[in-house]
């Protein structure tokens, strides 16, 4: 699998994502936000961080980067697209995923390990998980997922919700931690699976997410 990790100015989990992908033997390349072509890649990863300082709203400015047209084309081609944390924020701002990420209910950055339920174990991002309960790191100040009730109802109906917080740490609607688009090829999530792939760091619950993607 050839993967692209998009580097926006202010991305700071780009190298972590590269490290994780390489750990799984993926041929991963850093691609600048100024690039315009992603046709060489099978999967696109939008990493965490503070693109453009997260000034204005997180993800708001990044979504106008030249690379985003190529990301949209990749979506149209049905390629795998994953946005983690800031990447999720960019995908919602860009309209590739519904809803919006807002400031945490209790304002302030939160770095912790949180328990999640896998609410749809039949996606290309969750298929390899043998259990429904996992723990992943979160690190965000604007991770409160918000969408209007009709949108939430649609997400539920279409089984687009992949991860829910067992304890809602940021006030997200419907406890949502991660969703896919309707087609199921685009995933956005606030928790950081790429921080949970090595035993030495104390958590390997992120591994199955990468394995799921690689199994496709």
């Amino acid at each position, binding site marked *: 699998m050839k993967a692209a990790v998009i580097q926006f100015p*202010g991305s700071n989990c780009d190298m972590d994502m590269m490290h994780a992908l390489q750990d799984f033997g993926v041929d991963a390349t850093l691609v600048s936000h100024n690039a315009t072509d992603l046709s060489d890649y099978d999967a696109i990863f939008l990493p965490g961080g503070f693109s453009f300082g997260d000034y204005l709203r997180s993800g708001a400015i990044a979504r106008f980067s030249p690379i985003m047209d190529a990301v949209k084309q990749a979506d149209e081609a049905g390629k795998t697209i994953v946005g983690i944390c800031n990447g999720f924020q960019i995908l919602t701002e860009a309209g590739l995923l519904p809803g919006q990420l807002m400031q945490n209910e209790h304002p302030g950055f939160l770095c912790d390990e949180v328990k999640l339920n896998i609410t749809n174990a039949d996606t290309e991002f969750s298929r390899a998980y043998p259990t429904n309960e996992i723990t992943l790191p979160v690190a965000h100040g604007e991770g409160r997922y918000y969408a209007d009730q009709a949108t939430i109802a649609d997400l539920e109906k279409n089984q687009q919700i992949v991860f829910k917080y067992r304890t809602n740490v940021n006030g997200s609607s419907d406890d949502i931690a991660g969703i896919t688009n309707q087609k199921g090829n685009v995933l956005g999530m606030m928790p950081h699976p790429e921080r949970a792939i090595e035993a030495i760091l104390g958590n390997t619950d992120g591994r199955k997410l990468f394995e799921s993607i690689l199994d496709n």
Partner: protein
Amino acid sequence: MGKVPEPMRNEPSPEEIKENKIYRDWALTTEEYDLICEHLHRLPNYTETGLFAAMWSEHCSYKKSKPVLKKFWSKNERVLQGPGEGAGVLDIGDQQAVVFKAESHNHPSAVEPYEGAATGVGGILRDIFSMGAQPIAVLDSLRFGELNNNDTKHLVNGIIAGIAGYGNAIGIPTVGGEIGFDATYQENPLVNVMAVGLLNQADMQVGKAEGIGNRILYVGAKTGRDGIHGATFASSDFDSGVEKNRSAVQVGDPFLEKLVMDATIKAIREHGDEIVGVQDMGAAGLVSSSAEMADEAGTGVHLDLDKVPQRETNMTPYELMLSESQERMLLVVKADRVAQVSQVFADAGLSAVDIGEVTDDGKYVLSFKGQQVADVDVNYLTNPPKQVMQQSKPQHLNDEGNNQYQPQITDASETLTSLLKQSTIASKADLFKHFDSMVKTNTVIKPGGDAALVRIKGTSKALAMTTDISGRYTYLAPKVGGELAVAEAARNIVATGATPIGITDCLNFGDPDLTIQKFIMNLHSRVKELTTWQKN
């Protein structure tokens, strides 16, 4: 020096400076001022007086504490760079080195908790990457007044948010630290931040302006009026006093710093041989960075101030030289390689501006709007006459009684619970959860342990790091307090299974006095002991 350029019209003349002893507002003594006049064979103008005041301040020159600080035992086979540069550097094998330093940002944080703490993180990170190292961790060591006070809560919230705001955004994990509360710190919180970096030894940079004709490049944020202390007569374009006061607050921009950091490290890796010196602009910004680099190399510097990127209009040479605007770096680059080095910054959307050159005459020369506005000796400017510290034993040490305090414990479990309830002892997890401690995916032991442990990817090594203060002990008995701080830090390191290999100290005193001397002499012997013991 010809006709006075417009922005400088309101500045006092050299005679007025002498007459009204204006230099004293900038903490230059009359003796020092007289020495300067004697050295120059003329009266220094406003800009020059400002340069000397800044460079001869204790903050920049350590003119009082240096003789004592020299006593530290700072050499062994690991030490690649001891005191004197932006940060200390220790060999960790495999052609790698660890770079680390701690710095306080107490006063700015007391005035403006969020920005004060945030810019403290920004400043210490620049010290690390200006050596060519990639910052890998931040630690913080904080002291506040008692927590039952609203002002303290305001300071705690602002300072924690400031450290988080800067460190999280720039993507360097805050992996450890400590927080204590004591009424002593009621209006004077201590905000000490430490940064640790990883260096490929081949990339090591020092702040040296070598090579006659080499160019001086300015990178990063534009210069504004932030952080300019003292009487700024020239700022009469402000319409109100309030406005003027505000301009003294430094505001951090972690987004810009990340761009500057990444590009500087890249430039050093790709053009290390053509980049002769790198220094961040910290205290006394442009003057201290450029003058120190020239002094280090025994050269002179000529800067063209019209080229300095400016955020505000009508700035004077004094303001440009002394501004403490954040996120700025100075690079000395071989004259024929300016284009290549500048390109690295341009690729990151930054501009590297050529603002001057290295000269052979040992002079510090500034030009502004076609005039020469300063001309002094670099060496004289950067090396104030050493001062012997006033020595007198602090009163509270004289007052100390002989009777030993013996606690009376009637109900041990109650004593225990009341101890655990003390804010200094209670868990700080509610505060440090605001710090991203995991970004970069190297943090093996996160906040909450004894020391933080950060692994080095691609090797089987990890670095243990901790910060400790023993304020109350040091106050009561400087010698024992110093010993205990070193010992506690060492214990924390050892508890992770690591071996202590180096110490950086960050001493927050009032005015330099006897305490420092005693404290340092003693730290020195303790450090020596520890390292000797480690070798055996």
